[in-house]
């Protein structure tokens, strides 16, 4: 068989899968290094999750607080991640973020300004200094549009509304990708010497989430099937402030910038309850702490009418609120009939981000599969057990660039044509078509609704062994049901068919979350075990790891965290004693964290 006769085939040096901030930044870098680049995305260009990022991008520019520097950003990131971060990623991120932000300005981004005419920065949870460069509360839109407009002039081939369902290999090495056009359901083969995964997160497996339909663990599971390892999957961030009313908007994000600009959280007794949970940082504590606090207030009967907390910014005055938080103003006014310049919002935790993901080399962003790279939310390591707000936009710039750089270098070194295995392509095709074979069966969306219910109830903010086992058992049943769904209609733009495929990815990653959550018998960052409520010194020394076994089974293990050199340890030890709290015992005693 000649592949070209049966399929549309494209050939590039570097394939970038996903066109949010990380994918765009990777494609720009690879292209500027001379590589022929394909940028493949599930949505239209410019609609990826980055567009929804609101509050800002964290970088120690020191434009507002002169004492800020990369070392402080590094310390804040490590403390926020409860010391299970990959220290080297945190170091590179803190060092390179300022340059990446300034570069955006040179490409046309227009950030809000200080009085001196420099990029302004605002306060955010867990950041010691005012560090988040922003454009009101639409920072992500500014970034994705800047990157998009930069990218389209570089000769990058953009393939929109195309879903990749399988990575293709040549022996051990990566060789390309197989997918379908959403528009007409036809299949397409991309040959490539290097592949950068930049597919984002996993949030659509939760019932209450700020994430869009795209966040179905695609990249994580493409990598898993291709032989890469997953890391730290137990750490899922629940953003403390999502909308809780009315029903149709539950989960939609309320930016942390509301608190950054001085927003106050109160319970139904009018108490600023954060005093009990983090008296020093109050509303600007880290997201894991604030999310647990709101959840606990509700559980103990001090919640708001719709099961959240009050968040009030009206004291800053209508003009200021409309200028600095314009989309929050409109969002509440139009969707909830609440005027946030006059009355408080009602907010509660919403599934938001996964700190876990594909395990990569800190410097090169390469996985253990030669030629396969990952950057942005799909990759793991930088954020440890909990991500600080603003660190994801800087993450995707820093590591998107690195992934693009090293992927293009790899492609240069491996010149010559790649061989793809025809049987792999035919298997991938068969798998996608097989969904149409069931003459009867349930709607794939029913399985999705039950998956969201299962994960929300059993693998949410507070976890306990019994629930986690229930989830693992429930996932097995759902996997069986997912194989029997019935697809209506043709392959033309068919969301039911797309969902049937997405379910498979979500369920494997869901299992990885539950199994790693079971393995980590302590509470750390975003992972809270009711049966093991405290962090343990010895558990700061390892990370969870997940890979696919020879018989297709899921192998869950732990790996020793990478050693931190003494100069980096010293930076952490300089941190104020009280801030270090219970997590830092690991540092004294010369223990590697």
């Amino acid at each position, binding site marked *: 068989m000649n592949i070209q006769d049966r399929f549309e085939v494209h050939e590039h040096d570097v394939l970038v899968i996903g066109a949010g901030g990380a994918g765009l930044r990777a494609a720009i870098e690879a292209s500027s290094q001379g590589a022929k680049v394909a940028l493949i995305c599930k*949505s*239209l*260009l*410019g*609609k*990826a*999750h980055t*567009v*929804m990022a609101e509050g800002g991008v964290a970088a120690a520019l020191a434009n507002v607080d002169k004492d800020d520097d990369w070392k402080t950003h590094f310390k804040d990131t490590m403390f926020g991640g409860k010391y299970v971060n990959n220290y080297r990623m945190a170091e590179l991120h803190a060092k390179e973020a300022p340059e990446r932000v*300034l570069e955006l*300005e*040179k*490409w*046309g981004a*227009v950030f*809000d*300004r200080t009085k*001196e*005419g*420099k990029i302004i920065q605002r306060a955010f949870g867990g950041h010691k200094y005012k560090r988040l460069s922003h*454009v*009101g509360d639409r920072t992500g*839109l*500014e970034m994705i*549009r800047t990157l998009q*407009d*930069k990218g*389209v002039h570089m000769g990058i081939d*953009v393939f*929109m509304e195309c879903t990749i369902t399988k990575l293709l290999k040549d022996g051990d090495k990566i060789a390309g990708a197989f997918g379908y056009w959403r*528009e007409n359901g036809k299949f397409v083969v991309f040959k490539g010497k290097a592949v950068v995964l930049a597919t984002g997160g996993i949030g659509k497996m939760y019932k209450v989430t700020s994430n*869009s*339909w*795209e966040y179905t663990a695609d990249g994580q599971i493409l990598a898993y099937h291709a032989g890469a390892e997953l890391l730290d999957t137990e750490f899922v961030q629940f953003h403390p402030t999502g909308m809780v*009313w*009315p*029903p*149709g*908007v539950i989960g939609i*994000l309320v930016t942390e910038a509301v608190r950054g600009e001085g927003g106050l959280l109160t319970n139904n007794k009018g108490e600023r309850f954060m005093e009990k949970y983090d008296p020093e940082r109050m509303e600007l504590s880290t997201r894991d702490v604030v999310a647990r606090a709101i959840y606990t207030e509700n559980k103990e009967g001090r919640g708001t009418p719709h099961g959240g907390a009050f968040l009030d910014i009206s004291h800053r005055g209508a003009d200021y609120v409309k200028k600095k938080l314009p*989309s929050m103003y409109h*969002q509440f006014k*139009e*969707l*909830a009939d609440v005027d946030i310049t006059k009355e408080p919002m009602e907010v509660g935790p919403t599934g938001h981000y996964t700190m876990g993901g594909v395990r990569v080399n800190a410097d090169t962003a390469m996985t253990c599969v030669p030629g396969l790279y990952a950057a942005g939310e799909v990759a793991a390591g930088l954020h440890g057990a909990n991500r600080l707000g603003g660190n994801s936009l800087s993450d995707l710039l820093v590591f998107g660039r690195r992934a693009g750089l090293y992927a293009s270098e790899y492609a240069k070194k491996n010149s010559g044509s790649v061989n793809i295995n025809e049987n792999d392509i035919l298997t991938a095709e068969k798998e996608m078509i097989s969904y149409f074979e069931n003459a009867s069966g349930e*709607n794939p*969306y*029913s399985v999705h*609704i039950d998956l969201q219910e299962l994960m929300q109830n059993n693998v949410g903010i507070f976890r306990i062994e019994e629930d986690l086992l229930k989830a693992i058992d429930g996932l097995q049943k759902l996997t069986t049901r997912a194989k029997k769904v019935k*697809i*209506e*209609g*043709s392959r*033309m*733009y*068919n*969301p*039911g*068919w797309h*969902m049937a495929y997405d379910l498979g990815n979500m369920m494997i990653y869901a299992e990885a979350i539950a199994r790693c959550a079971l393995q980590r018998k302590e509470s750390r960052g975003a992972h809270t075990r009711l049966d093991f409520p405290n962090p343990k010194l010895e558990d700061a020394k390892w990370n969870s790891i997940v890979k696919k076994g020879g018989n297709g089974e899921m192998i869950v293990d732990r790996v020793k965290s990478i050693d931190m050199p003494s100069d980096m340890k010293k930076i952490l030890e300089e941190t104020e004693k009280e801030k270090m709290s219970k997590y830092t015992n690991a540092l004294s005693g010369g223990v590697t964290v």
Partner: protein
Amino acid sequence: MEQAKFKVHRGEGSQGQDVDYTVPIEEGMVVLDAMHYIQKTASPDLAVRWNCKAAKCGSCSAEVNGKPRLMCKTRLDDFNLSEPITVRPMKSFPVIKDLACDVKWNYEVNKKIKPFTPKDDTDWIMYQRDVDRVQEFRKCIECFACQNVCHVLRDHNLKPKFAGPRFFVRVAGLEMHPLDGENRLEELRNDMGIGFCNITKCCTEVCPEDIHITDNAIIPMKERVVDKYYDPLKMLLRSLFGKK
């Protein structure tokens, strides 16, 4: 439970018809919620684009009762529910299937716009008052509602001679950037056909981001084009010295 009736356009390509659906109502429900309800119950193959569901991405544009709207911020309680609500795809673009239409042309137009090019030796100092007006244009979420209602595109189909309001906004954002050193007036006049716009302001009315497209972007750009190409003194100088 209270219910709403919908007539939703279904069909592939230019073929299609309205299909009736009944959807139970929840408080605060928007049209996009109703489309998702239809997918989850009656028609999982209903094609509809969406991403953020919070009016930030501009994916879910459609014509609701004949008006271009973002489905994610169009609330059902704004309608008289004794009548069915019609939901159809944007008229100015070819339909792929159901509510999804082919908007690729817009991306081709965008590619041709000269990118931001900083002035030589800039110190990167910009004051807020100087960037306010550029930031208004950069709020655009590319929902293409303005492209959809613009009669030059909708009724006269002047693609590709006319770029449409979205791209006049984009060019205005570049031309008014305090540190941009490029000039795009010739393209505005020739390739983008800004002269075809006769400022009916339909685009401004439908913009979900409240960008004053006509007053703040198109009119100033038209003025700059006129100043450059139709200034009588400059025209005289050009005829004397043969300068462009």
